[in-house]
């Protein structure tokens, strides 16, 4: 293959790095809306082809039993500074697919589980997923109009999550509200990192 080089060509350097945060929750809870409300670009959609073993078929025979499913996810981008880009990925609606999508969760800084009080059970699976994978997460209750209002502690109880896990109310249609959710998540992550690196110091600080 011939490469044409020209005198004017400039060599690019790549000093930037990217991190990601996942936005999870049941179908229609507002994941893409949240991504869109804080993203500097209109949410983009990417897709992956995942292979799964068909169930209920003789699985001794190998490749013939594998089916390929296309799973889509929406994401947005926030350029933190020229060297750091944050991507927000809304997990796909079909839970059984994203749960086997290892790459999605791999090296995520943390996750927001969006909850809808009209059907809290739709986010049980996401909570369970992050707990099992030890990915730090918080819960953000998206306050839909006409949705029953609950106290934060009632939501925590219903989801049976630890008191340490931040749980907030939000309206993901509003940029400021989505932004505040992310601030809460990052403060939580920083707190976790701090207590992991200096447990003694953290104890002292808390007892003050």
């Amino acid at each position, binding site marked *: 293959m011939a490469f044409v080089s020209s005198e004017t060509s400039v060599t690019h350097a790549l000093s930037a790095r*990217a*991190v990601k945060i996942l936005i999870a929750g049941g179908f229609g809870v507002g994941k893409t809306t949240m991504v869109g409300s804080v993203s500097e670009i209109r949410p983009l959609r990417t897709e992956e082809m995942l292979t799964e073993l068909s169930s209920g078929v003789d699985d001794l025979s190998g490749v013939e039993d594998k089916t390929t499913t296309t799973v889509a996810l929406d994401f947005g981008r926030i350029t933190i500074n020229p060297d750091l880009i*944050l991507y927000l990925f809304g997990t796909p609606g079909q839970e059984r697919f994203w749960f086997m999508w290892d790459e999605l969760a791999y090296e995520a800084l943390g996750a927001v589980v969006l909850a809808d009080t009209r059907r809290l059970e739709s986010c049980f699976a996401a909570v369970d997923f992050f707990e099992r994978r030890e990915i730090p997460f918080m819960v953000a209750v998206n306050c839909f109009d006409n949705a029953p209002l609950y106290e934060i502690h009632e939501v925590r109880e219903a989801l049976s999550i630890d008191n340490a896990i931040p749980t907030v109310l939000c309206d993901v249609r509003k940029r400021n509200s989505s932004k505040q959710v992310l601030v809460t998540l990052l*403060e939580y992550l*920083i707190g976790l*990192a701090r207590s992991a690196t200096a447990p003694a110091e953290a104890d002292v600080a808390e007892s003050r």
Partner: protein
Amino acid sequence: MKLENEFWFDEDAGPLVRPYAVARGRTRPTRHNLEMTTLVVAARTDRDVNVDREYAHILRMCQQPLSIAEVSATLNLPLVVVKVLLSDLIDWGLVIFRSPPRTSDVPQMELLQAVLDGIRKL
């Protein structure tokens, strides 16, 4: 859905060939360390490189650092196919890449603080 049409290149055209044909039937990239948030950028600014259409499109697109997910979304091709194409471009020295930082890396605090500061400024 309006949203889905907005990022198609060449007007409203969908992919002209089936995804795996673009990658010549390959479903596994030669490089296994490419992830959806791996950043890629064209190694050089010259655009008249003699490569096939999809490769040339990626090189034009990647004059600024982009994640593999963004390349995939813009080309309307699945991540796995884009990874195959990017592996080729990396092997040929036409694209450079940078993997996302490992969460096990020590300066995690600085990273998290930088992200928090950036979000606060939104």
